[in-house]
């Protein structure tokens, strides 16, 4: 049933041209412009070409915001007027949440995967093993979408939900050093490496780009998986209580 309903959710998401324009076309355009400006320079901090670093940060940044797919679907289906119709159906509504989640994880992942191919063709960005890349993208996507699912479940006002989501996304990018490097301080260094979803995702992808299985990459992968499992467990409990 969960998978069957996912097909309808997928149809809806794939027709949401505004979201696709914001979350897929915009990074595509930005990568094209910034990649052209990079022009063969090296990114000293990450130790990869600047074009690769641009592609990496754009994909991660828009992965963070791709959680809005989950937020919007939750809002329209289970938190506004439609919730009465959905609750009148003979299935527990917390299960329908997983139909949404399956689609948004795959759809968000698919968009990022398409972007990696675009950057490989345009700027010869090295993403490493395709299998490892797909796995990493799906782990990152799952972490982001489950985080947004919990934002939708725990915050009552839609405005606050959106503000919290945007704050987390920009805050993560700030800690991840997207715009500038934070001061060299133990706490900030930890938060900038393991303490935010942006850095965790970046480290996971970076390991693949470098073709390494370094401890940082493995650790971030484990943290993201544990984070996702925790988010699913919390949402399952909350969802069950909300739609009893």
């Amino acid at each position, binding site marked *: 049933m969960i998978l069957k309903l996912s097909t309808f959710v997928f*149809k809806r998401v794939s027709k949401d041209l505004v979201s696709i324009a914001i979350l897929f076309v915009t990074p595509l355009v930005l990568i094209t412009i910034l990649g052209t400006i990079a022009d063969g320079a090296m990114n000293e901090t990450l130790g990869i070409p600047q074009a690769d670093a641009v592609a990496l940060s754009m994909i991660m940044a828009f992965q963070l915001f791709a959680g809005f797919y989950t937020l919007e679907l939750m809002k329209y289906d289970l938190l506004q007027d439609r919730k009465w119709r959905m609750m009148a159906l003979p299935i527990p509504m917390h299960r329908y949440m997983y139909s949404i989640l399956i689609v948004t994880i795959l759809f968000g992942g698919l968009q990022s995967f398409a972007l990696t191919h675009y950057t490989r063709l345009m700027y010869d960005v090295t993403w490493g093993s395709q299998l490892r890349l797909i796995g990493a993208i799906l782990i990152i996507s799952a972490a982001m979408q489950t985080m947004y699912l919990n934002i939708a479940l725990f915050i009552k006002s839609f405005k606050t939900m959106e503000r919290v989501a945007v704050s987390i996304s920009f805050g993560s990018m700030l800690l991840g050093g997207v715009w500038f490097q934070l001061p060299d301080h133990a706490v900030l260094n930890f938060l900038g490496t393991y303490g935010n979803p942006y850095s965790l995702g970046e480290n996971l992808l970076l390991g693949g780009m470098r073709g390494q299985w370094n401890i940082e990459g493995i650790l971030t992968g484990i943290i993201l998986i544990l984070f996702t499992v925790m988010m699913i467990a919390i949402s399952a409990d909350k969802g069950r209580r909300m739609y009893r």
Partner: protein
Amino acid sequence: MIAKIENIVKRYGNHLALDCVDLSIKEGEILGLLGPNGAGKTTLLHGMMGLISVDSGEISIFGEDLYQNKQQIKRKIGLVTQEVTIFEDLTAWDNLAFFGSVYGLKGEELKKNIQETLEIVGLTNYQKKLPTKFSGGMKRRLNIACALVHKPKFLIMDEPTVGIDAQSRNYILETIGKLNEMGTTILYTTHYIEEVEAISSRVVILDQGHVIAEGTKEELIERIQHEEKINLQLSGDKDAAVKEIQALPGVKEAIVIKGEIHIISQAGSGNLEQILAIGKKHGGVMGINSEKPTLEDVFLTLTGKGLRDGEEG
């Protein structure tokens, strides 16, 4: 008996939304649930489907306890929501396929049910279109169709005709009649009295969380039918006729307004024939009509004429 609700109470903070409500719905009937804004109609519907928890009372649907068999009971009920809650980004067909799938329909059975439902609501020619291109009436009809695709035994309709044109409303009311003829029991909630008058076999009036009246239209009208209005058009001496009419037992008032004699008489007093005789005596009757109370008179008598700006729960 399709549904039996006994003594249910629902509070929102200090606001008592439902106060010891009893309601029973018989198989095969169309029960019109009438009430002003904020009367508690939607709260009652949500409560009897288990969508909200009630503070006390018992609800049994199809003879089963709602809280012990909620999912099984829901399989046999269709809910038409007050708001249009279709998926605007899915075609009419896909909307019905979604809801049909939830009820476990698949393959040929699902296809057949979708086709039949689209035909019932008159949207067969629009099955591949997105609802964004639909008129308000078409969206409302699709909204109803989504609750019909699994062929429910019991259909709950919460103000399904709000904000649509007369033609669409008429079509929907005819459709409800047809569904009822096909064996569907219907609970129809509205504040449009003429709709209840047109389709309901029995009426319940809810106000401020209380059931204040219940019965057939005729029974409810009977409750307030303590007086009748008679308008008499005479060609002769009206003043003399008025004096004689006023002297009749049971006549409360007889006055001339714009050349017509308006009489208010006690219902069942049998004055009509005597009034006609007086009319003939004073120059001849040109016209006479007697106004019976309507369901609207019942509703306004029982709920009052003051404005109601309440919130539905």
